[in-house]
């Protein structure tokens, strides 16, 4: 398997995976259990993604003070009801600042 074949497989596969959900048959989407699952699952997946992106590194649990500081800044901004883009800016600026301070 050459690298180009692997890239082609990943491109085709990733697109097929995206389309599979969007193009699921109407009967499936309208089923009450599927509907409830589809409503709840993005919240769970995005929360899990936050945890994995924040607290793991290459398959192991890991703590990065800069990223943790950035997320803490986001939480504070959210508690202060800051606008969405201010929350992102506060997180990125804090993470960058902690990295500079810690070298």
């Amino acid at each position, binding site marked *: 398997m050459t690298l180009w074949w*692997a890239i082609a497989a990943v491109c085709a596969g990733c697109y097929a995976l995206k389309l599979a959900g*969007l193009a699921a048959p109407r009967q499936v989407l309208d089923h009450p259990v599927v509907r409830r699952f589809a409503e709840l699952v993005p919240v769970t997946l995005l929360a899990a993604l936050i945890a994995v992106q924040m607290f793991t590194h290459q398959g192991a649990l890991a703590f990065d003070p800069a990223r943790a500081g*950035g997320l803490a800044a986001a939480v504070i901004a959210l508690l202060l009801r800051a606008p969405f883009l201010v929350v992102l800016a506060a997180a*990125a600026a804090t993470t960058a600042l902690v990295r500079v301070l810690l070298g």
Partner: protein
Amino acid sequence: MDQTTHRSAAIRDGLGVGLAVGLSGVAFGAAAVTAGLSVPQACVLSLLAFTGASQFALTGAVGAGGDLLSAASGALLLGGRNTLYGLRMADVLRVRGPRRLVAAHGVIDETTAVALAQPTPAAARAGFTTTFATIYITWNLTTLAGALGTSALGDPAMLGLDVVGPATFLAILWPRLAASAELRRLAVGGMAIALLATPFFPPGVPVLLSALAVLVVLVR
């Protein structure tokens, strides 16, 4: 707020998330070339796979000298969550035919998150489209810049851009979590499952496994 205000708020959110997350393409471009991919290979992945986690997984495994079959499988496992997003987006977007084929390419973490944060279906569609267009353009341009090594953007990690993804998802979930104890339990459950599973499963699987928390809620 009236319809127009909702839609402009959605468009603003989409532009912000799109630009901030899209800039991380420079990290992907640089990582891909470092791992041994050519510049065209890095760009084709951003154009056609267009789902950051899978792209990083493939190049990471290639760079680590892993075999290509497991590298590709890992990337596809990470892409699996877009299928679950698609189930939800199907109801939000309500697109058919050729437009559905285009919209499908945009079903990723960020577009789903922005769409779900909007109060009305029209705003959700505006948020999805704006986020998709902005990320797609930015992500591909910065991939090229990162791969060519000519980026004036510097190291995205030094700019703190690696925290923008998680902060985006948190900001978008926040109002829904604040309003519902059930969603808070789900979120915490999903985080716990993903973290506990991380040491034992390949990348991508822990986040998919967090969907088990939803099944527990449904069964009760």
